C-alpha cells in the first residue's frame, strides 16, 4: 500500500488499472461501489488498499454484483456524492438497465470500463463488445490509448460529469492497458484535488426541501426528456474540451476528441483504444517510405466529435474503419456505421473499408497494420467489409 505514497509527483511505472485507482484516490471521490471482474479487478483492489491505508478518504463498498454497484452509485449521486465504479464485460452487461437510469436521471457518475469480450463463448480477453452493447445508454464514452491517458481522463471525468449532468465512462483495453506497466506522470495530490474541487451543489436528496426522484413520465412528456438528454449529450463536447484545456494547463497533456497522425493522407485508419499506437508506428514507417497512410484515433465516441472528424477528412480518399465488436446483421460494425452516417449526413463521399478485428483478445501487430494499409491503398472504389485475423 505505502509503496504508492511516494510516487505522486514523479514519473511512475503503473499498470492501467493502478493508474485509474490513483486517479480516483486523488479526485475527492465520496463513494466507490464495485464488484470484481477480470481485468478490472486491480482497480477495485487498489482502491480498497488506499481506503485501508487512509490514502483514499471516501467510502469503499464491496457490493454483491455490478447491478448493485451501479445502483449504489445512483443512490450516492442522488444524495449529492461524487460516485465512481469500475467494471468490464458481463459486469457492464449486468448493469445495463441501471446505466439508463443513471443517464436518464442526469446523474454525474464516473466509471472505468476495462474492455473485455462478452460471453458466449466465455472469453476474458480484450475487445469492445462490452461498451458497444451499452453505447446507446446515454453515457459519455471516452477512450484511452495508454495508462497515462486513462489516468488523465478519469480525473477529467468527474469535472465533465458534474458540469453537464451526465454520467461518463472511460474505456481502457483489458490486459493491453489494464495489466501492462507503463510510465505514468502523475500529478500531485494537491494539483488534482484543486482541479476537481468538490461537486457543485445540485438538486439532491440531501437539501432542505424534500423531493422525490425517478417518477413516471407519460407519453405527453417522456420524449421531451429524451430530446433534452440527447441535446445535452451532443452539446457536451464544448464542456469536455474546456475541461481538457484546463487540465492541459496543469499537466501539459491535451488528449482531445481525436488524435490524428499523417493528416491528409490518402488512407486513414480509424481506431478506438490501444491498438492505435501499433497502427501509428506502422504508418510512421510507411510514411518515411513515401506511402500516404495515417491514423485517426478517437478519444471520444459519445459525443461523436463530428466537426473534428470532418476536419480530418481533407485530402483523405479511403477510410479504413476498425471495429473490435460486431453489430450482427447491421450494414457494418458500430464504429463504421457511425462514420458512414456522419459522411452521409454531410454529403461527403469517401471510400469506406469496414474491418472487424481483434475480437476476444486476438492481437494486432505492426505487420497486420501494414498488410491492411497496403490493401487499402490498392483496393477499388466501393464499400467493402471483412473480418481480419491478425496477431498470429
Amino acid at each position, binding site marked *: *500500500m505505502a509503496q504508492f505514497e511516494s510516487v505522486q509527483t514523479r514519473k511512475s511505472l503503473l499498470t492501467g488499472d493502478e493508474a485509474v485507482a490513483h486517479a480516483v484516490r486523488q479526485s475527492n471521490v465520496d463513494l466507490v461501489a464495485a*464488484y*470484481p*471482474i*477480470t481485468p478490472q*479487478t486491480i482497480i*477495485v*483492489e487498489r482502491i*480498497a*488498499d488506499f*481506503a*485501508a491505508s487512509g490514502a483514499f478518504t471516501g467510502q469503499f463498498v*464491496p457490493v*454483491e*454484483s455490478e447491478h448493485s454497484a451501479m445502483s449504489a452509485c445512483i443512490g450516492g449521486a442522488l444524495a449529492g456524492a461524487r460516485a465512481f465504479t469500475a467494471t468490464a464485460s*458481463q459486469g457492464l452487461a449486468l448493469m445495463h438497465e441501471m446505466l439508463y437510469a443513471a443517464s436518464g436521471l442526469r446523474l454525474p457518475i464516473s466509471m472505468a470500463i476495462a474492455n473485455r469480450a462478452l*460471453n458466449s463463448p*466465455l472469453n476474458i480477453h480484450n475487445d469492445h463488445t462490452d461498451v458497444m452493447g451499452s453505447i446507446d445508454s446515454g453515457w459519455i464514452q471516452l477512450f484511452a490509448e495508454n495508462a497515462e491517458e486513462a489516468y488523465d481522463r478519469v480525473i477529467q471525468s468527474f469535472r465533465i460529469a458534474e458540469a453537464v449532468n451526465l454520467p461518463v465512462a472511460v474505456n481502457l483495453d483489458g490486459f493491453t492497458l489494464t495489466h501492462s506497466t507503463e510510465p505514468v506522470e502523475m500529478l500531485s495530490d494537491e494539483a488534482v484535488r484543486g482541479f476537481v474541487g468538490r461537486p457543485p451543489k445540485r438538486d439532491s436528496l440531501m437539501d432542505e426541501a424534500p423531493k422525490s426522484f425517478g417518477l413516471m413520465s407519460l407519453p405527453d412528456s417522456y420524449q421531451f426528456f429524451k430530446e433534452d438528454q440527447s441535446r445535452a449529450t451532443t452539446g457536451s463536447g464544448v464542456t469536455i474540451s474546456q475541461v481538457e484545456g484546463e487540465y492541459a494547463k496543469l499537466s501539459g497533456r491535451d488528449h482531445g476528441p481525436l488524435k490524428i497522425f499523417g493528416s491528409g493522407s490518402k488512407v486513414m485508419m480509424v481506431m478506438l483504444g490501444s491498438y492505435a499506437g501499433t497502427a501509428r508506428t506502422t504508418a510512421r514507417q510507411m510514411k518515411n517510405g513515401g506511402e500516404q497512410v495515417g491514423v485517426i484515433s478517437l478519444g471520444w465516441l459519445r459525443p461523436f466529435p463530428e466537426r473534428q472528424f470532418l476536419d480530418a477528412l481533407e485530402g483523405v480518399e479511403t477510410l479504413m474503419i476498425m471495429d473490435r465488436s460486431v453489430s450482427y446483421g447491421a450494414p457494418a460494425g458500430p464504429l463504421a456505421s457511425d462514420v458512414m452516417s456522419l459522411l452521409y449526413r454531410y454529403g461527403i463521399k469517401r471510400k469506406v473499408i469496414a474491418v472487424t478485428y481483434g475480437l476476444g483478445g486476438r492481437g494486432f501487430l505492426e505487420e497486420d497494420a501494414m498488410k491492411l494499409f497496403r490493401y487499402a491503398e490498392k483496393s477499388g472504389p466501393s464499400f467493402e467489409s471483412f473480418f481480419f485475423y491478425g496477431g498470429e
Partner: protein
Amino acid sequence: MSIKAYESDTRPDWCPGCGDFGVLAAVKDALAALNIPPHNVVISSGIGCSSNFPGFIKTYGFHGLHGRPIPVAIGIKDANPNLTVLVTAGDGDEYGIGFNHMIHAARRNDDIKVIVMNNEIYGLTTGQLSPTSRLKQVTKTSPSGSIIYPLNPLAALIGDGATFVARGFSGQPKHLSMLIQEAIKHRGFALVDVLSPCVTWYDIYDEVRKLMYKLEDKGHNPTDFYAAMKAAKEEEKLPLGIFYRDETKPSFQEMLKEQIGDGRWASKSVTPLNSETLRELEYEFS
C-alpha cells in the same frame, strides 16, 4: 454403474489441494451408486473455479454466466423432468450475485440439486470478499478486515421453505457422496453446501477438521424444523450432515404435471442413440 463411466478427458485446472477435487469425486461416486447413466445427467454451473466443474465430468454440462446456473437448471428440468439436474457453483456465484434465484427455486421446490463449493472467498478472481467470508476476514477487498456479517445460507434456506438442506466437507468425499445421493433421491429442491477450501487464497482445512462433527452421530432429527434451525445457527462447532428434510411437499414439477397433465412435455426419457434411431431422426429432419 462404474465411476469410470463419468471420467472426462479433461483434467481439472484446479490448484493442487483444492477442495473441489473432493467434490468432483463425491459427485461421480454418488451418480455411480445411484446407477444414473451419464447421458441422463445435466450439470449447470456459473463462473468461478468451482463452476469449471461440468468440464471435468462426462455428463451433459452447461458452463453459463456468473450467478445464473439455477434458472438455467430449472429450464432444463421443466423441459425434461426425467433428467437428473445438478447445479455446481461457488459461494460467490450462488450466495451472492445469484442468491435471489436460489430463494425462489427453494420456495417453488424445483426438483434440482444445488451443490455449492463454499470456500468463503472468490477464488477465480484471486481472493476477494465473498458473502460467506467472516467478520474481520482479511481479503483483497477487505484489507482492514471485513465489516460485513456473513450470510448463513443454511438458516436462510431452511427459513425460506427449502425441503432439503445439508452441509458436507470436501475432505470427506464418502460422507459427501452420501449427502449428494440423499439430495438426488429427495423429492424437490436440495441444497448441499460443501465446505471446499481454497488452498491458495483462504485455507480453512484445519479449522473445518477441528470443528466438524456429524449431526447423525448426535441423534439429530432432520424433520424437526427448529432443531434444524438451531443446528444451522450453531457457531462454536461445525455440524455436517442433513440439517433439514421435508418429504411431504410435492415438487413444482410434480404439481405442474398434475395441473397440466403429462402430454405437454416436449421430451421423453433420453435413450442413447443407436443406428436405427439415428436413421429415423435423419429421415424425420431431412
